[in-house]
């Protein structure tokens, strides 16, 4: 294993110097905090960016306030511009649920449209006269530049680990930038955010902890959420700005050549969702070199029982040669070989996962036929997946909480069916 992210504190003298600086900074911070006023009930918190639609040109900026307030807006400016544009929120509502007699807070969502691709946007959320600090996020590109995406799931328990993984995400985003690697655009979360989806206090704790994914410089990590079996109830749609009765399946293009479908294993997998997936793949699959899917309950589980995804979605994944399916729920590290028609096949789909953003890890059942060839790539550590897309290849790395690369492999692109009839070209996996 090698380290994924580099620590600049490898030199002993540097470490000593840093220790002094950190101690002084902490003591200064402590004295400030002890004198500071508690934040006003209208001061925006939990500021986050959510991607449902076209992340090159749109985004949803959401935040929470303790009191309802009267006017909610996002101030927005593209990097390099001086003037701020104010956009009023399009949805403000009190969270559903109880807090044991405490005031139930309010969710605010502002949809930003007509954004420029691959552009840094600075945002300030404001309720009445109370602004947040300044944040920024970067829209997805619409060209073929290399990009990265984080995938992980199951943050429902292991609160310390959840916070540590979130801090690691912020470090990884910054590290990619410093090292001039393909930028991490977003976090695709495979579901099971919290233990009980109807418990508002758990969602508020998750939102508090999600703030740790924000960089010191205010960079927000957009989130592309999938619903897990523990995320039951209406609060999920409030937290992630879905319409009230939304079924939470959708697809986003992360660049001109990468598309991600988010599916929902907690509703019917055989009905409208399957029809939607069939239409989506027919329309979009071969417009994108890389097509991946994420959802919660696995089709090829490393621990548990297959979900409806196996019966209802896998035939479509295979028909359209989806490159990879990202799964969660099992609480292990998993990678299958390419699978097609219940056997290992170079033209098949690779399934990865299964959730390590905090929840206690289990032991993968590598005796299952689809894990026997990749048993050494399965494990039991808290982790997340770093997916890096380039026109010519797609790299997948499993990064554990101490920054080690547990597993990495590369996929080669597939050729659309009409071309492959003339030039057979199988996808290959390179370790």
């Amino acid at each position: 294993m090698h380290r994924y992210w580099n620590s600049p504190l490898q030199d002993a003298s540097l470490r000593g110097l840093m220790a002094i600086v950190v101690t002084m900074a902490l003591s200064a911070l402590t004295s400030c905090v002890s004198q500071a006023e508690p934040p006003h009930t209208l001061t925006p918190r939990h500021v986050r960016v959510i991607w449902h639609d076209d992340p090159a040109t749109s985004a949803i900026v959401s935040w929470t306030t303790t009191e309802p307030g009267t006017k909610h807006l996002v101030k927005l400016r593209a990097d390099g511009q001086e003037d701020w544009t104010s956009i009023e929120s399009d949805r403000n509502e009190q969270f559903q649920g109880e807090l044991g007699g405490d005031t139930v807070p309010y969710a605010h969502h502002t949809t930003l449209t007509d954004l420029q691709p691959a552009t840094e946007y600075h945002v300030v959320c404001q309720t009445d006269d109370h602004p947040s600090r300044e944040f920024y996020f970067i829209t997805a590109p619409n060209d073929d530049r290399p990009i990265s995406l984080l995938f992980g799931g199951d943050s429902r328990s292991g609160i310390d680990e959840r916070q540590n993984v979130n801090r690691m995400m912020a470090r990884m985003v910054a590290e990619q930038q410093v090292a001039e690697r393909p930028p991490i655009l977003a976090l695709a979360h495979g579901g099971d955010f919290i233990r009980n989806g109807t418990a508002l206090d758990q969602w508020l704790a998750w939102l508090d902890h999600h703030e740790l994914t924000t960089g010191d410089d205010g960079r927000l990590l957009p989130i592309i959420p999938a619903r897990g079996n523990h995320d039951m109830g209406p609060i999920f749609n409030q937290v992630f700005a879905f319409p009230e009765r939304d079924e939470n399946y959708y697809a986003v293009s992360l660049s001109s050549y990468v598309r991600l479908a988010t599916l929902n294993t907690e509703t019917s997998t055989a009905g409208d969702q399957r029809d939607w997936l069939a239409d989506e793949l027919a329309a979009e699959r071969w417009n994108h070199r890389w097509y991946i899917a994420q959802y919660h309950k696995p089709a090829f589980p490393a621990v548990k029982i297959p979900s409806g995804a196996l019966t209802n979605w896998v035939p479509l994944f295979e028909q359209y040669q989806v490159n990879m399916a990202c799964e969660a729920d099992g609480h292990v590290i998993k990678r299958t070989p390419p699978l097609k028609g219940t056997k290992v096949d170079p033209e098949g789909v690779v399934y990865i996962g299964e959730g390590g953003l905090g929840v206690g890890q289990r032991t993968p059942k590598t005796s299952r036929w689809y894990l026997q060839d990749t048993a050494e790539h399965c494990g039991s550590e808290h982790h997340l997946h770093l997916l890096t897309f380039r026109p010519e290849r797609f790299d997948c790395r499993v990064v554990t909480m101490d920054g080690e690369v547990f597993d990495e492999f590369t996929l080669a692109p597939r050729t659309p069916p009409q071309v492959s009839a003339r030039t057979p070209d199988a996808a290959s996996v390179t370790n």
Partner: protein
Amino acid sequence: MSDDNKTIDWLLRCGVALQCAGYAWLVGVVLETPLLAWLWEPADVGGLGLGEARGMAIVRVVGVLLTLAAVSTIMRPSRVLLGLVFLFQLLLAYAAWQTYDGFPLDVAWLGGGQLRAWGETAVRLFPFAAGAARIAAPLVLLLVHWSKIRKLMGIAITPTVEWLLRVSIALTFAAHGLEAMQQRGSFLDMLIVTAHRLFDVRLEESTAQTMLLIIGVIDLVVAVLIVARRWRPVVGYMAAWGLITAAARFFALGVDRGWYEFAIRSAHWVLPLVLVLAWRLVPVPDALLRSIGSDD
């Protein structure tokens, strides 16, 4: 002993044995049940925090005991093993409660405030209602097989047993009815996939939703009727529907997974069938039961 009472005894024995065999496989081989989750998950998420290895060792032992119970129930029923099966079923429901397993009923229709808070607490107890027939089945067999009344007079179903049957079946049907009315995704999938595999018909989700709503309403109605009055067509319908929905697992999930999903639901059709048979017999006056010393 009348033929019907022999049939009731054997029906219960076969049903409980099948249920034990299904759970023995699910718990001891497949391993993935709320029981395992409850054993290994840490205490802050509702578990006992025993760790995965210890949890698996325990559930494997449970699987062996359930296998023994399955065999013994057919060969020579054992009070101890049947008692353990009853406790296992209770524990499984408790584990599902603790680990938030199962379908999350929506209580938003209760509005806000305390009523909704109570509703949210109550729906977490749902595994006990949904599993009521499975919990009751070994208990019913315990009460029937060693019944003095049955041995002396060939009367299998005493008033206590009858009410245990009626209430447990009612709870199971009502719970599944509510899940159906709230459009449980796996139920929709079962309708769509079964229709496709059996009849080569592609059922639209909206059609499946309407069917599920009707099924849910019927489940609730028969759940009320079975408690309200002795009506053999109602329990006959419940037996048939319990069998159909259990057997649908074969079509929706395939034989390798469908067999144990079918087996663990034996009580859903066996218990109503017991009532179909019991209510065919001439009811025995309570005074006569008292005069010979009821088991109750």
